[in-house]
């Protein structure tokens, strides 16, 4: 059930917030092997359900990536280092709660949100609901799993260099990285203070739009505007780089947008290759700075991959910082010029489908590459420029989800979600459910109304 439909039924009194929470708690319990949640707080959620404000998300059960503070719940960042019970909500959580949402618990993440697999050595991997021996992507892997397996109506993730879009894509759901700065990041364990964002992962663009309305009061949805006349630039270099079957589905999705009235043409992005390097030079030292005290005192308690990246950030030469600042300004200017010609850019959200857990390389066009390097050009450029990007499901390869990414101009989330919604009105990829899971929470919700004998 969509956030909108669930919220409507809750507002109409066809279902109580308590009943909705109980349905999701039941489902979370029966899918524990997916390891989506690090912490479920049934008592707090049920208490919150009793006093949820009558806002647009009245009684809607949501879940939050475990780098974002929720008052009364532990924040661990899937690490062996951090374990603080938050005294207050992060602003993003406070806004969802003020709109009426009820927080079920905290979701699995790559350790300290600093990686793209969500395979914490301390808490275990989040498992992809479409194939549990495969990764969910990351770093917001638990959010992707929870949205795909109906373990919350909507979720919050964070995205520094792809961490919302990657799991949304690999889990077959919709994720939105908002423009940098649109949603406050206080109360969020930082990766890179100038790149970090907080955004929704949910079933559909319409659901993400509803969540974003609560998260960002400045956002004005235009979901029903269609795509007639929108100029979409196809980032051809990235279609050429993705696995052919993945690129083919993304190309078909762009074709659908064209058939719906968008004006589609090729687009070349200057410094596309270099933008990933620039982002690394920005992100790594900022992450090391955020972790410096822990690097001094708890170095051995980090997982090996995160420890290596943090140390790399600590030890990068100062000349890298000079290049990153110049490069960032230059790349942003180039993208501004490109987005003067287009309303949106389109590309495959990821070059591959979800790899098996533990597999560090992927095959791309006959070449084996490190997974973490293969995905950089698909995710980093737009993060570096602070632009809004949605990943939307657009098909399956060997039973595994594929996504299309739509990139908009800065603070133009409305156009990104409008195009995503137009696509989802014509397709049902976002409605597909992973096989072999217990019956969905919504089927229980359909009948859970004891007051009416349901």
């Amino acid at each position: 059930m969509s956030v909108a439909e669930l919220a409507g039924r809750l507002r109409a009194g066809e279902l109580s917030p308590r009943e909705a929470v109980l349905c999701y708690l039941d489902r979370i319990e029966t899918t524990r092997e997916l390891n989506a949640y690090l912490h479920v707080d049934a008592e707090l959620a049920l208490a919150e359900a009793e006093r949820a404000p009558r806002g647009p998300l009245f009684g809607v059960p949501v879940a939050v990536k475990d780098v974002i503070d929720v008052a009364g719940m532990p924040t661990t960042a899937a690490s062996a280092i951090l374990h603080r019970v938050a005294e207050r909500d992060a602003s993003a959580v406070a806004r969802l709660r003020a709109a009426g949402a009820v927080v079920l618990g905290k979701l699995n993440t790559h350790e300290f949100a600093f990686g793209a697999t969500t395979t914490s050595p301390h808490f275990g991997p989040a498992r992809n609901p479409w194939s549990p021996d495969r990764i969910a992507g990351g770093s917001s892997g638990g959010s992707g799993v929870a949205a795909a397996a109906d373990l919350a109506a909507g979720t919050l993730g964070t995205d520094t260099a792809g961490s919302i879009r990657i799991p949304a894509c690999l889990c077959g759901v919709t994720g939105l990285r908002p423009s940098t700065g649109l949603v406050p990041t206080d109360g969020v364990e930082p990766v890179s203070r100038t790149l970090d964002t907080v955004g929704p992962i949910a079933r559909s663009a319409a659901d993400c739009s509803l969540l974003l309305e609560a998260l960002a009061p400045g956002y004005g949805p235009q979901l029903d505007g269609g795509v007639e006349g929108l100029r979409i630039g196809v980032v051809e270099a990235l279609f050429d780089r993705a696995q052919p079957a993945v690129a083919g589905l993304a190309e078909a999705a762009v074709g659908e947008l064209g058939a719906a009235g968008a004006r589609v043409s090729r687009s070349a992005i200057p410094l596309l290759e270099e933008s990933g390097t620039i982002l690394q030079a920005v992100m790594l030292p900022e992450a090391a700075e955020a972790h410096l005290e822990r690097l001094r005192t708890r170095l051995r308690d980090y997982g090996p991959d995160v420890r290596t990246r943090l140390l790399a950030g600590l030890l990068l030469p100062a000349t890298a910082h000079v290049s990153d600042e110049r490069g960032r300004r230059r790349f942003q200017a180039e993208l501004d010029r490109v987005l003067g010609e287009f309303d949106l850019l389109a590309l495959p959200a990821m070059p591959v489908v979800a790899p098996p857990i533990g597999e560090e390389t992927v095959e791309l066009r006959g070449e084996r590459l490190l997974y973490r390097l293969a995905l950089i050009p698909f995710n980093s450029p737009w993060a570096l420029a602070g632009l809004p990007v949605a990943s939307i499901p657009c098909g399956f390869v060997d039973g595994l989800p594929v996504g299309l990414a739509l990139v908009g101009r800065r603070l133009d989330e409305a156009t990104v979600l409008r195009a995503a919604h137009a696509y989802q009105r014509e397709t049902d990829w976002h409605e597909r459910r992973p096989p072999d899971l217990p019956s969905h929470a919504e089927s229980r919700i359909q009948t859970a109304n004891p007051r009416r004998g349901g």
Partner: protein
Amino acid sequence: MGTPAESSSERLLRELAARQGVEPTPDDLAAVAAFLEVLLPQLGVLGERLEAAET
């Protein structure tokens, strides 16, 4: 003191880390050196590209 198998780049990294109060193991330093072996040449190319674009 470096370890016998420590390369010059690993020794430099260890000294830089120590100046910031961080004490990585030889295995940590080898992993970081391998990571930077990929990134630093890319940064070199980036610098050249930016120079070319700005002149």
